[in-house]
C-alpha cells in the first residue's frame, strides 16, 4: 500500500503549514525518512535567512506625510467622483442616445430627401417614414415614434438604466432643425417663396 503523501501535502509539511492530525500523520511518516527531515530543516534555514534579512514590516518614510497623502488622495477621489458622475452620464448619453438620434435623423432625412426628389410640385407634404432604429448593445430595445400633430419625435429606449434627474439634456442631445437635417429644405423654402411671389 502506498503511504506516501501527495505533493501538496508534502509541500505544506515542508513549509510548516500543517496542523493537528495532518501534522501528526506527516511527522510519523517522515520519522523514518531522514532526507525529508533534512529537507525541511534546509527550507527552515532558508526561510529564517530571508525573514531576518528582509523586513516583514517597514514604516514608510515620513509616516505622517504618508497618511496625509492617502487622505488627500481619498478627498481628491471623492471630489472627482462627484464631478465625474454627471460627466459619466453625459458620456453615456453621447455614446448611446446621440448615435441613435443621429441614426433616426439620417433615416428620416433620407426618407424625406428621397420623397422630395420624387415629388414634382413645389409643395411637398412630408410623408410618414418608418426608420430603422438599432442599438449597438444587446438587451436594449429602441423604438421611434413621430407625431406630426404634436410636431414631436420620441425615441423610447428599453433596457437602459434610469436617467438621473441631474442630467442636463441640453448638453447631451443635439436636435437638428429641418433645415439642418434636410438639404431639400432650402429648395422647398425657395419654391415656397417663389410661389408666394
Amino acid at each position, binding site marked *: 500500500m502506498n503511504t506516501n503523501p501527495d*505533493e*501538496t501535502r508534502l*509541500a*505544506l509539511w515542508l*513549509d*510548516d*503549514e*500543517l*496542523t493537528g492530525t*495532518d*501534522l501528526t500523520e506527516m511527522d510519523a511518516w517522515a520519522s523514518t525518512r531522514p532526507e525529508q527531515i533534512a529537507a525541511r530543516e534546509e*527550507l*527552515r*534555514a*532558508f*526561510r*529564517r*535567512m*530571508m*525573514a*531576518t*534579512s*528582509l*523586513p*516583514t*514590516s*517597514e*514604516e*514608510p*518614510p*515620513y*509616516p*505622517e*506625510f*504618508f*497618511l*496625509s*497623502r*492617502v*487622505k*488627500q*488622495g*481619498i478627498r481628491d*477621489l471623492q471630489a472627482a467622483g462627484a464631478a465625474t458622475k454627471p460627466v459619466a452620464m453625459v458620456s453615456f448619453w453621447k455614446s448611446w442616445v446621440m448615435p441613435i438620434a443621429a441614426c433616426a435623423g439620417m433615416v428620416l432625412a433620407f426618407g424625406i430627401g428621397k420623397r422630395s426628389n420624387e415629388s414634382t410640385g413645389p409643395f411637398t407634404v412630408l410623408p410618414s417614414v418608418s426608420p430603422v432604429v438599432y442599438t449597438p448593445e444587446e438587451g436594449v430595445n429602441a423604438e421611434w415614434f413621430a407625431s406630426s400633430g404634436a410636431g414631436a419625435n420620441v425615441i423610447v429606449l428599453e433596457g437602459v438604466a434610469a436617467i438621473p434627474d441631474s442630467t442636463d439634456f441640453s448638453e447631451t442631445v443635439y436636435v437638428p432643425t429641418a433645415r439642418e437635417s434636410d438639404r431639400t429644405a432650402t429648395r422647398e423654402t425657395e419654391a415656397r417663396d417663389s410661389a408666394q411671389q
Partner: protein
Amino acid sequence: MNKPCSDPSNPLPIPQDAAAEESDEDLRLVSLAQQGDMSAYDELVIRHRGKIYAMIRNMIKNEADAWDLSQDVFIKAWQALPRFEARSRFSTWLYRISHNVVYDWVRKRKVDSAGELNDEIFDREKIDSSARTAPAFVEPPDDALSNSELRVKIEAALAKLSEDHREAVILKDVQGLSYKEIADVMECSIGTVMSRLFYARQKLQTLLKDEYESR
C-alpha cells in the same frame, strides 16, 4: 489544514491568538470605515502601511516608487472597501490590491526610462516648513539592516527572479502568508504557487549559495 502553525522551530511563527485578535480588530475598523468613519480607515492605514510598504519595496527595490505605490494601494482599498466581504483577512486583501498596483506599475514602467531613483520627495529641505502636512522626522527603524551586506545580496538575487517568482517568495518567506493566501493574492492555484516557490527558492539558493551555507 494549511493554516500556519506556531512551531518554535518555524522561522516565521505566527501566534494564532494574536493574529486572530488583530484580524478581529481589523474587521471592526473595516466595518466602521464602511459606514464612513474616516478615522477608522486612518487606523487601518496606520496598522498596515508597514507591511504593504515593505512588501512593495521588496518587490520593486525603489523607495520613492514604493512610497507612492503604497499610497495608491490604500486609496484603491478605500475605493473598494464597500465590496470587501471579509472572506479573507484584511491584510491578505490589501496584498492582493498591492499585487495589482505593482503589476500595473511594472507594465507602465516598461515604456519609461530605466527607473532612476527619485529621492527628491525624501529631501526634507524641499518641504515647506509651514506646510500643514509637514512630516515629523522619523528615523528609519532598520537603517542598520538596510545597509547590511546580506540584505543587499538578497535584494540583488531577488531582482534576478521573474516578478511572479519574486512575489511568491516574498509573500511566503518574508511576509509569512500561507499557500492559500498567496494563491488568493496572486489569483492562481495552490499548485502554481508551489511551482513558483520551488523554482524561486532553487534559484535564490544557487545565487546565495555562499551566504546560505555559512549560516
